[in-house]
């Protein structure tokens, strides 16, 4: 952001009166510092999510303290805990109801891979059935790890210049396709951010 402008305008204190920037850059700046998380907490990861939101770790420092419990008001879905296949209709519906642009954090081992619950009812990673932007490792992840996840979302928003989430190739340029049979490992791909 480049500060410039006349200094002699009426009522002016000597500082530049306006700033010039690109609109998408400004939007990304606004969006990454005003995340509205939707806590989808189904297990012990939710406790760490609460700890992250509380005063000691305080996600308000990252502009993400306004948690709402309706998807209509949120743009960051934090899935924290086990997800059974019976819950997938609910989770997918919540995702589709969220406002664009939107991002998803898959928090913890269970949500990202099924964790130790390798049974008939538990989804072995929600990314099998819906988009995920950031995986936060841990069982459960400590608040610092989740904060790193939030900051990664901020970097994604910044890198992607806050494109609408239905465009492919947004965000960081590393794409992981765990379910594709032809690509079993992380591959470089995607378009220029």
């Amino acid at each position, binding site marked *: 952001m480049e500060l410039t402008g006349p200094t002699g305008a009426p009522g002016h204190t000597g500082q530049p009166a306006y700033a010039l920037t690109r609109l998408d850059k400004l939007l990304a700046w606004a969006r990454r510092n005003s995340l509205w998380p939707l806590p989808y907490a189904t297990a012990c990861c939710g406790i760490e999510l609460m700890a992250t939101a509380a005063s000691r770790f305080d996600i308000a420092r990252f502009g993400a303290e306004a948690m709402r419990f309706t998807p209509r008001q949120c743009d960051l879905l934090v899935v924290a805990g086990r997800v059974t*296949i019976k819950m997938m209709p609910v989770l997918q519906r919540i*995702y589709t109801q969220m406002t664009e642009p939107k991002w998803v954090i898959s928090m913890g081992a269970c949500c990202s891979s099924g964790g130790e619950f*390798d*049974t*008939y*009812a538990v989804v072995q990673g929600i990314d099998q*059935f819906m*988009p995920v932007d950031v995986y936060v490792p841990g069982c459960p992840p400590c608040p610092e790890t989740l904060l790193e996840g939030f900051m990664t979302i901020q970097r994604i928003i910044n890198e992607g210049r806050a494109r609408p989430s*239905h*465009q492919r190739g947004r965000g960081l340029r590393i794409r992981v396709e765990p379910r594709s049979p032809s690509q079993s490992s992380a591959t470089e791909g995607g378009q220029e951010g």
Partner: protein
Amino acid sequence: MSEPPADIATEKVVAGHPAVRALVESFDQQFDFAPGLLKAGENQVCVRVPPDRLLEVMTFLRHDARCRFEQLSDLAGVDYLQFPGATDRFAVVYGLVSLTHNHRLWVKCFVNDPDPKVPSVVAVWKGADWPEREVYDLFGIVFEGHPDLRRILTWEGFGAHPLRKDYPLRGLGERESYPVIGRDHA
């Protein structure tokens, strides 16, 4: 299922149980309800009832003045596949409590493949509604006469009964078969 060999003390406990005495007087000539103690519990008296007489016996236990089992404290299914010494495949186990007399009784009802069926006891204890649905869901035992026998824990499209011993832990593809939504999905 055969209960462990009963010693004299066990026989005394079992025979002294007021509900067992009432059952002997009323039903003993009609079938063998094999009274005994549960292996796991002290003084936990257990009787077995054939499925075709279950509703009659349960109604008796609920209303007879010597029994008065007002409360159905538990209703569970058991799969005895490959269980040592087992002769029947499934059991439905009822835990009864009498608040009037402060005594308890376990009732076991054994059923077998290919068509495990037990009469529903919802008419006797209304609280049997959801436990029977759960046993139906997880074991595939049908409760005849149940007012609303639907799955209760797994979802409606689930085709199997996952607590059967021959059902694989990781399922038969149920957890993989769900529609995928992408970023384009709105």
